[in-house]
């Protein structure tokens, strides 16, 4: 480029938007988490005080926040492996040589991904309704008594996990499938000549090749699942007995229902710290396995 000014002219609009409406607020979010910004400060900034780490100590001593953390971790720890397992299974099925009509199946399995989360959460609420829901009706045929899916604190989160797995598995399925299609057929041919069974081919050829991709989509899916919000908002409003309050749901109520924007920022920063720690551990694990 001859004139560096031109390059900046091309970059400036995007950079300004990202700088002013993302990076600046992120920095301010950290600052806000150290203040007691509440509804009084919203009305008059003179009521704002710097409180140091008080918000952090307060949240880390609050059972409600720990419950939100626990619920979120439950959603992540159960939901991510289920999602990835189903993505992998569906991709392997679509890739099987005997599979028919694969373009149709692929599109159908992917369809839930593009749907609107709020809308399908509404649908889910009626499907899992205790008395007239299709799910309990179907289970009745195999002798299972009606379950109070969204009203029982032990079942509400599993029902939300089912929705998330149903809605999301197609995304990673497509990525894994694309990766499978890059594996040359000769590799399998050679293995077959050596007498390797289908299962041995899967364990010794397919999975090792897929491993980096699985790790990558695992990290991305984990980051996404930590941001659980719309499902409990629409399906359970955090209940029953706050069993589906996620960290973001907690943050939303704290910030935009009670206008405690300071504490809400603290919750967001703590979630970020947790996500960062988990991602970092994930990456360390992959690296170690890669070198071993």
């Amino acid at each position, binding site marked *: 480029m001859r004139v560096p000014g031109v390059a900046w002219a091309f970059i400036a609009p995007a950079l300004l938007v990202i700088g002013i409406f993302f990076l600046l607020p992120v920095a301010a979010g950290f600052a806000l988490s150290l203040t007691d910004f509440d509804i009084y400060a919203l009305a008059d900034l003179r009521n704002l005080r710097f409180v140091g780490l008080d918000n952090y100590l307060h949240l880390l001593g609050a059972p409600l926040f720990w419950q939100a953390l626990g619920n979120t971790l439950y959603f992540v720890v159960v939901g991510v492996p289920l999602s990835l397992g189903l993505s992998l299974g569906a991709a392997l099925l679509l890739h099987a040589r005997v599979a028919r009509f694969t373009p149709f199946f692929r599109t159908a399995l992917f369809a839930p991904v593009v749907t609107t989360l709020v*809308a*399908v959460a509404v649908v889910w609420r009626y499907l899992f309704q205790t008395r007239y829901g299709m799910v309990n009706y179907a289970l009745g045929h195999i002798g299972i008594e009606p379950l109070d899916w969204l009203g029982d604190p032990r079942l509400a989160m599993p029902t939300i996990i089912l929705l998330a797995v149903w809605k999301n598995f197609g995304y990673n399925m497509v*990525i894994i499938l694309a990766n499978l299609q890059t594996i040359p057929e000769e590799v399998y041919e050679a293995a077959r000549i050596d007498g390797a069974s289908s299962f041995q081919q899967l364990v010794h050829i397919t999975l090792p090749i897929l491993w980096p991709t699985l790790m990558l989509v695992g990290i991305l899916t984990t980051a996404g699942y930590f941001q659980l919000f*719309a499902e409990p908002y629409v399906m359970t409003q955090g209940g029953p007995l706050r069993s589906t309050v996620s960290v973001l749901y907690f943050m939303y109520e704290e910030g935009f229902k009670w206008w405690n924007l300071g504490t809400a920022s603290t919750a*967001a920063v703590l979630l970020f710290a947790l996500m960062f720690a988990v991602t970092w551990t994930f990456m360390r694990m992959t690296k170690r396995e890669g070198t071993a």
Partner: protein
Amino acid sequence: MNRPFASVIVNGLLIGLTFVSLFPLLWMLSVSFMAAGEASTLPPPLLPNAPTFANYRELFERGGMLRYFTNSLLLATSVTLISLVFNAMAGYAFAKMHFAGQQRLFKVLIGTVIIPGQVAMMPLFLLLKQMGLVNTYGGVIVPAMAGVFGIFLVRQYALSIPDELLEAARMDGAGEFRIFASIILPLLAPILASLAIFTFLGCWNDFMWPLIVLTDAKLQTLPVALASLSREHAQDSEMMMAGSVVTVLPVLVVFLGLQKFYIRGLLAGSVKG
């Protein structure tokens, strides 16, 4: 395992999975045509006894659905068009122009994707309030006018544009913006199509930020309106299903029509990332 047997297992499982994937959507469509109260009977009916558009009519005539639909369409279209221009310009510049600090700046931008947007939400709300954008379309559009993911996607694609092409155009005396508009944009068309669909669907489906920044019912998008309708009308399952259809159908149609571009963008964004 012999071939016919394997075929039955594999295709049987695929049919089963497809059934699970599509059933909730087909059920939603079917119930949306049922008369009020029909879905709340035992055994739960699969198909409407006498299909009716009453739920849709009710939603559009009295529920303000047209308003929400227009809001969603307007917001998603504006965000898509504006961010497409800004991201394309920046992505192209990062790929093809050379300036001091370019590499480092790009790395910093990429590094910011690990920050969840929620950390920014509270200050962003205060900032937009200060600017008078809370409870306006601008509150949704302005923060979404550019994004790191879009810049990244365009840059990766633009790297493959040969430098000779640009040199030749400059030799002919074409200005940089002219080159961008008449040579680069057409070359970027495939990736811009992918990015456009991604942005449009993402914006249409977005929930948390519009919920926060658009409190006035007149400005709400379909997901936000649907969430509040479902709290008021929890018993009216038929009407809620019609509302869900109105929300989901446009994005499903866009996806089915432009699937090729969507999947290409998805793979470009994840495999190389």
